């Protein structure tokens, strides 16, 4: 008995130091499977993509010559690349604002409607359950078509929703908002339901109006959720592809071509995998910058509030 107790006691200082530095063999063993997958499916492809973006490789994997920053130079001097990047930014701004605000408004409404809540929840969240192909076909074939589409048919108008440069982007944004607002709505609803009821009761006793309660209790307590939703939404919007590809293919006149669609066109229709990788890396850097800025902003706000 004594030996078994003594042995770990002797080893203790080493292990403790290791644990403090966050390093043990056991820990390593547990993490290893995940680490392997992480390296094989994330780190390695990321490096491979970087190498590809510096070469002239085509879709068949041949013509693999190192050309340095040639692809990047070409991308930065291609007006279509800038146009696609700008479209992506426009889409992000136009979609993020209503997606966050409407998510909040719908959550507040549903939270305060005390009857058949499941029905309201389902109706706001329902569209989010649909795959992007279904949503795109629905809007492309039934809601937007000039002539017989649901909107034009009902209003008696003849708006070329998806085929005019002035309306195409807005139409795509409208579809996206309808389709994805449910996710933000759900996050907000969960956050609302976790706010302690007694805060409201105390405020009501002090004579605070509904508006005051919203401004001074609800919105501040939703701050963290809002930060999360804004980050998630910005990232999702920057990566927009499927609904645009399916509904307008970037047209008319490139007015809805997003940066991912541009990379896709260059890589798969144009066969230039190296160039497409360079474009992907430009987007990657943009996303990293946006995430870092956000992180900074919210950290400051968190410090201030604490």
């Amino acid at each position, binding site marked *: 008995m004594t030996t078994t107790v003594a042995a770990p006691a002797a080893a203790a200082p080493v292990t403790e130091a290791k644990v403090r530095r966050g390093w043990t063999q056991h820990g390593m063993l547990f993490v290893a499977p995940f680490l392997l997958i992480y390296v094989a499916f994330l780190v390695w492809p990321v490096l491979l993509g970087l190498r590809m973006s510096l070469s002239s490789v085509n879709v068949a994997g*041949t013509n693999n010559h190192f050309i340095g920053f040639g692809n990047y130079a070409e991308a930065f001097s291609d007006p279509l690349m800038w146009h696609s990047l700008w479209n992506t930014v426009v889409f992000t701004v136009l979609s993020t604002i209503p997606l966050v605000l409407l998510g909040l408004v719908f959550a507040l409404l549903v939270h305060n409607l005390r009857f058949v809540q499941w029905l309201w929840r389902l109706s706001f969240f329902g569209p989010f359950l649909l795959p992007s192909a279904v949503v795109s076909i629905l809007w492309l074939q039934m809601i937007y078509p000039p002539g017989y589409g649901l909107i034009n048919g009902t209003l008696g108008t003849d708006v070329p929703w998806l085929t005019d440069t002035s309306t195409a982007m807005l139409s795509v944004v409208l579809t996206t908002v309808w389709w994805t607002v449910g996710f933000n709505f759900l996050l907000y609803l969960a956050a609302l339901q976790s706010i302690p009821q007694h805060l409201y009761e105390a405020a009501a006793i002090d004579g605070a109006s509904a508006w005051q309660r919203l401004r001074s209790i609800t919105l501040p307590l939703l701050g963290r959720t809002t930060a999360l939703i804004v980050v998630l939404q910005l990232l999702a919007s920057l990566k927009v592809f499927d609904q645009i590809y399916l509904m307008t293919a970037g047209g*008319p*006149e490139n007015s809805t071509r997003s940066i991912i669609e541009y990379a896709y066109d260059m890589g798969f*229709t144009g066969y*230039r995998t190296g160039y497409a990788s360079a474009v992907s890396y430009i987007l990657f850097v943009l996303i990293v910058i946006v995430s870092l800025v956000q992180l900074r902003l919210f950290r400051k706000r968190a410090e201030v509030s604490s």
Partner: protein
Amino acid sequence: MQDPPDISRRLLLGGTLALAGAAAAGCAIPMGLGSSQTRVKYWHFLGASDGIIMNKMVQAFAKDNPEIFVEENVLAWGEPFYTKIAMAGSGGRSPDLATFHLARLAGIGAGATLDPINVKLLEENGLTAADFSPPIWERAHIDGVLYAIPFDAHPMVLYYNTEICGRAGLLGPDGKLKPTNGVDELMAALRRTKDAMGGKPPLAFDALGLGTVGPWRVWWTLYAQSGGALLSADNTKIAIDDAKALEVLRFMQQLGKDGLLDWRTDYGASVANFTNGQAAFLWNGDWETTGLKERKTPFSMTRFPSVFGTGAAQADCHSFVLPHQRNRDPEVERATYRFIAYLVKNSADWAVAGHVPAYLPALKEPDYLKLEPQSEYRSVITEVALDPQVWFAGSASRLWIEFGQAFSPVIGGQHTPEEGLATAKAALNRLLSAPNPFPDQER
């Protein structure tokens, strides 16, 4: 009561896999692969009525050649198909045979991803250069090496509704459309048809829509008629004749302005309008023939009207290629050539789909000449306007999509012809300055 049959797990699994395989192959496997059969793996992109006819031809071949099993694999048309061929060919473990658009040949790095055609084996199977339409045979070569066996040409044609055209008095005593020559005659015919239709636009083609190539097809047809070229002889510089290009664009815009063309129709709507008698004329490729016949539209078709000089019409050609294989089995190779020769020699069966055979003897066969209206436009085969031989040209290529996007708003009147041409030239410049992903030295 009888017990349910005893199904072993292996049998069930095998059966499921076979079913899945059949589903993946478009349910096209005519019969099981016997151990003594030579298997030819065949990839093609022929869907809808084209696909049905191809499948019938494969089955007919199987009946005559029981020792050969053709495994038909139907893949989606367009860019994904060419991406797959490029990747399979570069890996060297590709199908034995694939269909291809001739105009895409220059863009795929023929030597790297496709194997040259064995001319001797072709001759053994009874096919020589003399059997094919010369401009098309020429296009199947790259740097003097044959890389494809032409199967057909699918040109732009003019579909017309016989009932409406009869009312407008445009049909001759033989019940066929009286040909027009030049802009004025065509416009006059369209106006008469418009009156006969109570003011509805009589002409339809896919003027806008998702990645539409209709504006390119029509423009390239008319521009080629006026004798214009797109690129310099060495394919390195833009050689567009602005005056001619603009004349064509102005004409296309005029059609919309005068209410002779409904410029709001995309591909589906233009075909639907013609099918339902909402439009009297349809400018489109010849592949809608079978569909229109099935839907009992009173129609016939003829060559694209001569508007700016010649009777040239935009076209591309289906052909057969051999994706690159590291080790080609000589037995499979012989079977492959036999299959190709069978398809080419039976081009009259294929012409049912609307395409003009590239195999010249087929054009004289009574079977083909009996085909109405498919044989009406066969003379176009010597006047097809093919794409320039550059890597970004051909069916569903960057060139087609970019030009379609540039010209679509011109037809609709949102852009001036000058703006449209400038956009197209900018796109063409961008494509010219981008490096060829499959450069020559790879061969």
